[in-house]
């Protein structure tokens, strides 16, 4: 299991606390004071480390192998969920999970990108990199939502769309483009949450929605920092610098008015407390759905158009 440098001291403390607890359990020795001391120390350290994370630390957190994935959130925050499969064109992409379910007061359609937890699962899910059939399955779900007047929730967590020959042969670009087009045509409320990695075209394909939320330590970028560093300086090892330059954090995305809301994560990031994180995500989504549900169908489509229409920073030359 990968442990990142900035997490090392925390993990060491956590192992120490664990050991002490075991000692208490096995031998009945009272170590309450020591445990409390170590826990306070851990808390201080977490606060210290997480109060000034660099963009690159966020990249590592967003890709953390223990970070909760789409199906974890669905399990933790939905009252119920039934997964539905297939693009009806010959494929079912495991990198995208989709289905119908209940969340609070809502019946809804959910589409999410799913990474795998262990090596076998990671390979089966293609590391969360969807192929054309994944986006075509998503489009099927969007159309179901429109037909039955259900809101759409998308959960974004992908390094990128699958770039391989197979995906190119089946029209990955067209699938991404048409997934966005389908979202723009909908007259039901649509909300997306960037859970971990919002990787370029693979992410925006599912995030052309009325509201876009981002978890505190998620990233959203036009290119992976490694790729950016390779282009800028011919050196992928300078990815941390590229992460600074790309302004890929939730804070920057909000400052640039490209997302609507940052969902806070518990101290030490989502993977230290998936339950609490999922509850925060849930209440944020429900708040958005409550607001959007007040809008007329045509107004929702217009709102989505205007939301993206005004994105862009340029100047107008004097005539």
């Amino acid at each position, binding site marked *: 299991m990968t442990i990142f440098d900035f997490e090392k001291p925390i993990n060491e403390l956590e192992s120490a606390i664990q050991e002490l607890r075991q000692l208490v359990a096995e031998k009945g020795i009272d170590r309450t004071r020591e445990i409390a001391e170590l826990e306070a120390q851990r808390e201080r350290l977490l606060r210290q480390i997480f109060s000034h994370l660099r963009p690159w630390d966020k990249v590592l957190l967003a890709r953390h192998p223990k970070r909760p994935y789409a199906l974890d959130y669905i399990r933790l925050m939905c009252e119920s969920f039934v997964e539905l499969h297939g693009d009806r064109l010959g494929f079912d992409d495991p990198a995208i999970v989709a289905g119908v379910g209940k969340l609070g007061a809502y019946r809804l359609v959910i589409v999410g990108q799913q990474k795998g937890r262990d090596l076998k699962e990671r390979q089966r899910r293609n590391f969360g990199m969807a192929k054309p059939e994944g986006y075509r399955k998503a489009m099927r779900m969007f159309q179901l939502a429109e037909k039955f007047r259900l809101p759409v929730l998308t959960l974004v967590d992908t390094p990128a*769309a*699958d*770039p*391989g*020959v*197979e*995906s*190119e*042969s*089946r*029209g*990955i*670009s*067209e699938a*991404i*483009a*048409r997934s*966005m*087009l389908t979202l*723009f*045509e909908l007259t039901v409320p649509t909300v997306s949450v960037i859970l971990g990695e919002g990787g*370029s*075209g693979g*992410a*925006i*394909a599912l*995030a*052309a929605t009325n509201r876009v939320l981002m978890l505190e330590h998620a990233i*959203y*970028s*036009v*290119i992976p920092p490694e790729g*950016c560093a390779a*282009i*800028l300086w011919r050196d992928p090892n300078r990815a941390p610098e590229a992460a600074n*330059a*790309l*302004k*890929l954090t939730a804070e*920057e*995305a909000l400052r*640039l008015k*490209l997302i609507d809301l940052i969902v806070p994560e518990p101290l030490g990031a989502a993977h230290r407390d998936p339950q609490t994180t999922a509850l925060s995500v849930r209440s944020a989504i429900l708040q958005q759905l409550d607001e959007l549900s007040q809008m007329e169908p045509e107004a929702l489509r217009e709102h*989505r*158009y205007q939301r*993206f*229409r005004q*994105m*862009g*920073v*340029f*100047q*107008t*030359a*004097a*005539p």
Partner: protein
Amino acid sequence: MASASDQWVQCAKCKKILFKPDFEQAMRVCPSCGHHHRLRARERIAFTVDPNSFVETDADLRPADPLGFPEYADKLAKGAQSAGENEAIITGIATIEGHRVVLGVMDFAFMGGSMGSVVGEKVVRCFERGLEQSLPVILFCASGGARMQEGLVSLMQMAKTTAGVARFQQARQPYIAVFTDPTMAGVLASFASLADVILAEPGALVGFAGQRVAAQASVGKPPANFQTAEFQMEHGMIDLIVPRKQIRPTLAYLLDIFTGGARV
């Protein structure tokens, strides 16, 4: 294409030395091997529209530097100087064999035709103008993809231009895209792939990821024609490959079919 002298040029593909006036007459298509050399946007407009019919729109839009990205301001200045244009697309209204259209032509010479805020804005305005004036939209694509230097703002241009396509559908006017060398990544994966009809020039590079990334992510070697217009047509992603000389009459023909009504 290296210039041997003022009168002679060398084909970038077959390396044959060509008499420049003949080469220009052939719209920069090699008369020997048929290789389609890249055109500048203004050359393309001149080859495509009826003489003196082009009226440029939104020429006053200039790029900004929303992220303060390293070297971007410098690259923009150099791009403007070497390309003689302010951005990677020129848009306007023109007639093609008498058909009035909204026209956008991307220019690879300006920062690789990359799509930042200005390209996104001008493409959306093409669709909005087409809807307002009930005109067809013709877009010539030439782009390496999204403009990295504008970060997430440039990624959002994919959604923004797609929103433009979605809304333009109400116009019931044709949107025709022409893929020229190269049409890649963020441009291909947004408005470009959503045209009613997609034409491409022979041999144009058309694809999603860079060739090396694609090969690394695949089992086995990519086919020899991988990510060419021909490959994309074989896989159903392009309607027709059209030699440069035939693009103008083909566009006129399609415009007539789609806007002329069912009765001839």
